[in-house]
């Protein structure tokens, strides 16, 4: 096993152990069952979704506050538009070229759907289709920033992304 495989295994083990402890507490009995359940779940998760990209955990965690801030802004923005009598909307589409690998692209789409004013609606070729709630508000400016943040979490995309 190379270094990447170990990193992936470590991340998955960390995740499944944390979920197990949250679900069943720290009783001796629960931990005893977990000693079988956690490795089994880790094996299953690696089999169903092999780690293809190297996730940098601390960059992922560092991004978390800005993600929470963005989704807060997104919720406030959409609530304001929904409730104000004039209902200020100017819906439209943009197509953005995205150079992330598959998993990263889905993550980007999911994140954009929770950020203010943007909603990903799949890929056409290598371009991400993004619906905008207001084409005048400059929501699309956040897209390259989020893409860069996700690219930074996945080690090695620097080369694959190309020029």
């Amino acid at each position, binding site marked *: 096993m190379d270094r990447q495989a170990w990193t992936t295994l470590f991340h998955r083990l960390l995740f499944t152990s944390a*979920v197990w*402890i*949250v*679900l069943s*507490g*720290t009783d001796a009995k629960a931990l005893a069952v977990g000693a079988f359940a956690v490795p089994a779940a880790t094996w299953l998760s690696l089999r169903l979704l092999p780690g293809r990209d190297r996730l940098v955990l601390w960059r992922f965690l560092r991004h978390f506050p800005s993600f929470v801030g963005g*989704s*807060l802004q*997104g*919720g*406030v*923005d*959409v*609530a304001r*538009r*929904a*409730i104000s009598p004039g*209902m200020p*909307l100017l*819906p439209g589409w943009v197509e953005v070229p995205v150079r992330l690998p598959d998993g990263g692209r*889905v993550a980007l*789409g*999911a*994140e954009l*759907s*929770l950020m*203010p*004013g943007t*909603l*990903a*609606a*799949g890929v056409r070729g290598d371009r991400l*289709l993004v*619906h905008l*709630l207001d084409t005048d508000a400059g929501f699309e400016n956040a897209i390259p920033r989020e893409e860069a943040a996700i690219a930074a979490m996945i080690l090695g995309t620097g080369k694959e992304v190309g020029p």
Partner: protein
Amino acid sequence: MNDLATYAFTSIGLFFFVAGSVGFLRFPDVFSRLHALTKADNLGLGFIALGIAFQAESWRLVALLFLIWGLMLLAAGTMSQLIARDALRERDGR
């Protein structure tokens, strides 16, 4: 004090749920409605979970509350993409 935090955060959460439903009813096209549903409702759930966390008796319950919220966020982010893509296909008559 804890009860006060619960009152405050659950009220905010309820507000976002109501706002999400209003947007879902009022917004003119399917994609805008999807915006309202994805963003407002999951924020509402987050605030409700935060409010209830102040009532929790152990750290495990707090963690469980945020696991539920995280799972819903993940599901909402993925689902909104899938539904949007399908709505696009429906609109294009496919």
